[in-house]
């Protein structure tokens, strides 16, 4: 207990003297949060130029159908119309100012009135398969509406039944994951930074002189790291509240257990890497980059229930997946098991397993690298 208290006191002095150890947990997740807010939190309608050369009225009806369809994502129209003549439309398209151009020919109405099929030209940027898929399917939404409006004999009904408690904006879901990242990075970086400071001050060798067991000093480091993680997560939570209106403070009782367990796992991971690698900067780069990548793979931006193959296997093997799902379940009052995929008990067993394994490895490496060796 004496070593623990002394170590904690020393770490707190180091922490106070150089609060830069909070930098990682504040800067990196805040920037990630803002970037995601600007991108995933700010979807707008795709710009589409519509050139209507139709001699009849169906062209205008199609125009109305295409530009009046509303996306469930953000409740914006899929397309924003850019009114232009043929040449201007293609100039804008060449400059990348519109995503596509729809050209309705002069016989569009005549063909339909004569009971024939008709065609339209669709020029678009198939930047990648996802973008191309969206541009194709968004236009098809307009065409389905056009069919319904113009053909009274079309009586196919699609009834949508909401089988979940609510519908959430994509960014809100990501923001909660960023909160977890802020906690993990803040805790890990504190651990690494304070090690680095002690390396600079040449005080690490003093452990070898200690007549006592040093495991309690490791415990003090973990406590200090979790304290720093709490500060960085709290700062991040304020940004999340400002950007989304979600007050994460209300959900602390339900979030604290998964946060604590994941925090301990990642702090021990940082200890192992930093002591094995020897280079503090190298260890920091590796652990931070690995944490961000594992964060992505654990369903931070997209639910893992649609993952298949190796991605699913990896996601299921990462402890964050379970912790994040429980945190989201708490915040959004939704099923934390992700449709039964992540069982509550199995999730806790996996997280606890990781915690014990990393703890054993960290204690072993800590003792081997820092403690006094006799004989």
């Amino acid at each position: 207990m004496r070593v623990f208290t002394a170590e904690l006191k020393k770490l707190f002095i180091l922490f106070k003297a150089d609060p830069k150890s909070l930098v990682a947990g504040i800067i990196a997740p805040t920037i990630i949060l803002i970037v995601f807010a600007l991108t995933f939190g700010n979807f707008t309608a795709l710009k589409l130029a519509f050139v209507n050369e139709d001699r009849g009225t169906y062209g205008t009806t199609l125009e109305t159908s295409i530009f009046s369809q509303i996306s469930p994502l953000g409740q914006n129209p899929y397309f924003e119309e850019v009114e232009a003549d043929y040449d201007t439309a293609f100039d804008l398209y060449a400059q990348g100012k519109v995503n596509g151009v729809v050209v309705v020919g002069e016989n569009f109405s005549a063909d339909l009135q004569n009971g024939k099929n008709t065609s339209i030209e669709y020029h678009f940027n198939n930047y990648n398969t996802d973008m191309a898929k969206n541009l194709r399917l968004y236009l098809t939404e307009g065409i389905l509406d056009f069919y319904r409006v113009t053909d009274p004999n079309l009586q196919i009904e699609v009834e949508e039944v909401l089988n979940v408690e609510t519908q959430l904006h994509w960014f809100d879901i990501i923001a909660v994951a960023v909160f977890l990242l802020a906690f993990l990075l803040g805790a890990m970086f504190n651990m690494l930074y304070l090690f680095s400071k002690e390396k600079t001050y040449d005080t690490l060798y003093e452990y070898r002189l200690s007549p006592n067991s040093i495991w309690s000093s490791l415990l003090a480091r973990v406590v200090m790291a979790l304290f720093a993680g709490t500060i960085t997560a709290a700062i991040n939570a304020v940004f999340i509240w400002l950007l989304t209106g979600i007050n994460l403070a209300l959900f602390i009782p339900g979030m604290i257990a998964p946060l604590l367990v994941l925090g301990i796992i990642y702090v021990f991971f940082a200890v192992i890497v930093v002591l094995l690698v020897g280079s503090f900067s190298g260890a920091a780069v590796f652990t931070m980059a690995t944490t961000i990548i594992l964060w992505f793979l654990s369903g931070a931006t997209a639910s893992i229930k649609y993952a298949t193959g190796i991605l699913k296997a990896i996601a299921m093997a990462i402890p964050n997946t379970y912790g994040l799902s429980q945190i989201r379940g708490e915040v959004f009052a939704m099923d934390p098991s992700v449709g039964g995929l992540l069982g509550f008990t199995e999730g806790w067993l996996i997280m606890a397993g990781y915690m014990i394994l990393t703890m054993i490895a960290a204690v072993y490496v800590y003792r081997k690298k820092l403690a006094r060796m006799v004989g």
Partner: protein
Amino acid sequence: MRVFRIISKELKCIKEDISFNLVTILSPLLFLFAFWLMLSGGIMLPVQVYPDTQSSDFLKTMESYQAPDGTPYMELQPAAEAVPPTNAESNLIVIDQEPSFKNGEITGNIVHYINDVNENMTKNFRNRLDGALVSYIDSLRNGGNVIIAETTVYEQDIPWDTGFGVSVFVFGLVLSGLLFGMLSMTSEWENKTTKLLKLSPYPAGITVTGKIIANIIKCFVSGLIFLMIFFLIFKALPVHALPFSLSLFLVYGIFVCAGMCIGIYIKSTLTAFLISLATALTLWVGGGGFGPLSYFGDIANALGSINPATYAIEVVRWCYFNGNVDLAAGFTFLSISFIAAFSLILVIYTRWVRSEEVR
């Protein structure tokens, strides 16, 4: 001659912190691996259906509804019963009344159980279902259909994972430029050799140029390793080698200079690394790393227009996939940015070596 000595010294310094230099190469590779995994599923979404596909012509159409490259939009999984899923893995589509064409009328009733809280997934499922419906209606009717004649920028849709891999490569360019640039300055702080730089009788420009060239060489080595692994995964090579090399030089140059500026002020390798990582991520995502900026709002587009990563992504993508990119604008912006970044580090470094060191 002096420049060569600086270059030689900088390259020898790799030995000082091999692990850091290695992880600078490894970090973009880890991102490549992660995103490759994340996008390996492509655009296909699993969806539960009832009854099974053999019992419904509409579901057969849904099953074969696909993108032009042959990738189905949906992977149909038969549900055991037509009840609202309580713990289902995906959305459920129930054919309540089979869509059919009788007496000139097309009738049918479909129930779509939305089983995901994410609005984006609701959009994705709805789009696919409606698309399949249009395809089925077109197959039932002889007239009144609107056929879409497509003309696309690229001959084939760029596969999502390959396109993203090229995008991650640009992230790697930005990150390695920043990290190597930063490390060349923070190592001086940590080795306590800043005094030697300040006492050097040679012009600051020579030292700066030597450091920049050495860092660009390191960046090219790390880029080459990335490209080799990228090729092994995706079997894709740039089709315009000269513009590709030029763009790499400019992007590395910009971010090496920026990294050196960070290194002068931040001093700590760890802090500078984090700032570099966060900056690289921000510029990359903000420059269209996650997808074209046209997806996003006006603010994102305005910021993207002054972001070198935006132009780097466009130019590097063109080098791989062609397409209608304004190359002149891209190279002009990158060149101006490089000149600006070089001038900035020159001014900052000169001021720094002339300043007194206060401890």
